[in-house]
């Protein structure tokens, strides 16, 4: 298992390298730079700045020095936020993104598994259809539309929850962003869960369990949940990536200073170091999360474990 994990990690290195190289050259070859301000800088100042950040060297030279630094874990300075290194900025944004993303991840799993199992057990009942309709809405209405509607209802008209900001991480401020971020994933997990639960309930070993006289709820809890969770589990890897994409919007709408906000600002300001740093960070995060999901999958599925 450990060898498998290491092999998986090693196989992602070329991808990271290709993606980084692509981003590096796209950024550099494109017109515009971090010091092209609306009021042009005096040429001397500009030349000094560029020399300071090493932009006066040849592109190839810069590429190799950047890659060398990344290899030893140094993401370099931010070009537009003076006095901050990329790593420091990421460390500042990280708690926001992680809190919302993590909470949304857990909420999505919780809601999805519960509603999915419930729908499967009460197949084709009124409740099943109601859940299906809500899921369809959750899947179709994009989060940048759900967010303002919830803000309007709960923030402005009912005035129960704040419409945005962080508020030192108090629960009230977290509810709306987390719900908005979790909704589409809860819907997808619920759908997967319903399908796989129905399939599992039709399996022979469930019939055996019932024949042995184990009651309905206990059959589900003891025997059906675990195998039915497998398809859900394999969705969680990609879901981590979608959550990051979603957090771009959610951070933007709710005015949260997370990594997504940093990425968008860095891209707009041509902050080379920051853009590349964010890309590396996101990719490593997604790769690691996918790996965890794969290992968990192997651990849960006796058929995979046996190999």
């Amino acid at each position, binding site marked *: 298992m450990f060898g498998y994990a290491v092999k998986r990690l090693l*196989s*992602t290195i070329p*991808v990271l390298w290709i*993606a980084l190289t*692509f*981003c590096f050259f*796209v*950024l550099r070859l*494109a017109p*515009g730079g971090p010091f092209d301000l609306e009021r042009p800088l005096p040429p001397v100042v500009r030349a000094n700045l560029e020399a300071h950040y090493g932009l006066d060297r040849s592109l190839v030279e810069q590429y190799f020095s950047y890659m060398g630094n990344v290899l030893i874990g140094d993401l370099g300075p931010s070009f537009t936020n003076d006095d901050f290194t990329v790593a420091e900025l990421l460390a500042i944004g990280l708690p926001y993104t992680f809190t919302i993303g993590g909470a949304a991840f857990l909420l999505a799993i919780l809601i999805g598994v519960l509603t999915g199992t419930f729908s499967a057990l009460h197949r084709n009942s009124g409740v099943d259809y109601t859940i299906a309709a809500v899921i*369809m809405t959750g*899947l*179709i*209405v*994009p989060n*940048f*539309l759900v*967010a*303002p509607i919830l*803000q*309007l209802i709960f923030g*402005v008209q009912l005035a129960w929850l704040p419409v945005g900001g962080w508020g030192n991480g108090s629960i009230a401020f977290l509810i709306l962003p987390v719900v908005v971020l979790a909704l589409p994933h809860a819907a997808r997990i619920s759908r997967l869960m319903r399908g796989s639960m129905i399939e599992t309930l039709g399996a022979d070993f469930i019939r055996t369990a019932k024949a042995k006289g184990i009651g309905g709820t206990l059959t589900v809890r003891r025997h059906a949940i675990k195998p039915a969770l497998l398809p859900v589990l394999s969705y969680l*890897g*990609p879901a981590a*990536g979608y959550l*990051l*994409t979603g957090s*771009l*919007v959610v951070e*933007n*709408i709710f005015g949260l200073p997370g990594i997504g906000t940093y*990425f*968008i600002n860095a*891209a*707009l300001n041509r902050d080379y170091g920051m*853009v590349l740093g*964010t*890309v590396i960070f*996101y*990719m490593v995060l*997604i*790769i690691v999360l*996918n790996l965890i999901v794969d290992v968990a999958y192997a651990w849960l599925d006796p058929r995979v474990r046996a190999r």
Partner: protein
Amino acid sequence: MSLLPDNRGAVADAYDASLDDDVSGRSLTQDALRRFRRNRAAMGAVFMLVALVIAAAIGPSLLPFNYEDLDWSAFRQPPSLSTGHYFGTDQNGRDILARTLIGTRISLIVALVATAVSVVIGVCYGAVAGYLGGRIDAAMMRFVDIMYALPYILFVILLMVIFGRNIVLLFVGIGAVEWLTMARIVRGQTLSLREREFIEAARASGLKPTQIIVRHIIPNLIGPVVIFATLTVPEVVITESFLSYLGFGVQEPLTSLGTLIAEGTDVISVLPWMLWFPASFLVAMLLSLSFIGDGLRDAFDPKDY
């Protein structure tokens, strides 16, 4: 999954025909279309989509207002029948109905072109991987697996920021994001197709791999590809409006549903109609596209019946 290449229908047809020349059999495709037509949600969705397409195509030219013209007599007007601004106007006095229709048009065009791009890339990649098989296939599909794990939207945003908000780039960027699943599906189909007799016959008669792929494999993939492409369209619409919402999509004065929703969100408590109308168009479009896609899939893949 495969619908056209299956010869069960043809065999049945031949059998029927041998019994009685007047009775014509039904092909699998006809069967599927019949199932589709019986699906009320899907048929309703077809009508809704057709209505949206017609409105987006010819609506703007029928209106007295252009989507970019300012009406100096009507700023921030709520929807009303008497002023002629049926959906109201924005802060600059631009007609929301005209802007919504243009936005719908842009979103539909982007969705179609980007889906076409993703279909072309996905089909070529998947067919080549599936047909060649072996190590090449393993390497190509491993690449797809890895690509699945990348935060594409970041790359699309980068491209849009760096090369300007170009609508062509938007097509290519989104298309390049959405091809992976298509490649997987096509590869799976191709794997089963290439063991079939007619491919063997083509190989025996000396066709080159490229000719076999283009002439014999790809035509037989049309069914699953069409179904999956229909399911891709709403995803593309969401991606496009997502980018436009963040300000990386189409540029003013041209607009798309995502841009309109972003503008409406800013003024939701004072000029709510600026959000509701584009939002309901977007939701209607996504709903109808999803229902059509699901309906097609159910009709052509009657596993559940």
